[in-house]
């Protein structure tokens, strides 16, 4: 048991990646593989739902940084939603909110992809 789960579903044209558990140096490669799979299919609209995520370290943050350029170069984006305060504070320490759009609800984020 890795303590980290990923569940990806397509909603309209957006790949919604629900992550739960902890995202650290042990589990980050699982998210990396998931993003690899999504982008290799030519899907570049990715929404990560953080509702079930309890913990993130820099190894997890690195995965988002590793894919954002590729995704944006292809007209897509990685957006985020439903992040708990503890995790938002870590993002904030590194200035991530300037780089990624973070929404309170999944519906808002999906709507934003239509712009």
């Amino acid at each position: 048991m890795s303590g980290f789960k990923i569940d990806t579903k397509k909603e309209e044209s957006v790949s919604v990646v629900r992550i739960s558990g902890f995202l650290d140096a042990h589990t980050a490669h699982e998210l990396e593989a998931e993003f690899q799979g999504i982008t290799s299919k030519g899907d570049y609209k990715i929404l990560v739902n953080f509702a079930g995520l309890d913990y993130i370290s820099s190894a997890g943050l690195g995965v988002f940084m590793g894919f954002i350029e590729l995704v944006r170069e292809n007209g897509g984006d990685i957006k985020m939603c439903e992040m708990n305060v503890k995790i938002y504070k870590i993002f904030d320490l590194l200035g991530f909110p300037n780089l990624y759009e973070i929404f309170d609800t999944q519906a808002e984020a999906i709507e934003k992809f239509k712009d």
Partner: protein
Amino acid sequence: MEAKIIQKVFLLQVPGVTENLKIVRDFINEISQQIGFSEQETAYIELAMDETCANVIEHAIKNDPLQKIVIHVKGIEKKFIEIKIEDKGESFEFPKIKTEIPDIKKYLKERKTGGLGLYLISTLMDKIEFLREGNKNVVLLRKNFIKRKE
């Protein structure tokens, strides 16, 4: 009657693989709470500890389950927590401590993420020190307790 000041001392030894980061985090989380740190401060101490051990596992031990990480923790309630992390892995060049907020956009261009952990540790803790003692790599971390206004 004067209250006795009791120093709490803890020791954890785990094989140096990333799978054990969770055990390390749970261990430090418990102690941090015992010392009286808030939930948020405890989360920060936990993160700094994780980042340090993840660095040791990657650069010194190279995820070798036969190598150990030894963690000594001492603290005094509502005063401080001090953590000493030792390994007998390869000696690695001690990184320069970065205290400026990293330029994330520049990081993206250079596709590097390595410095983020170190930045987090130095931001979240009051002291971080890297030493080489004999055949051991040693990292020292300290966080002081700050009394909150009621």
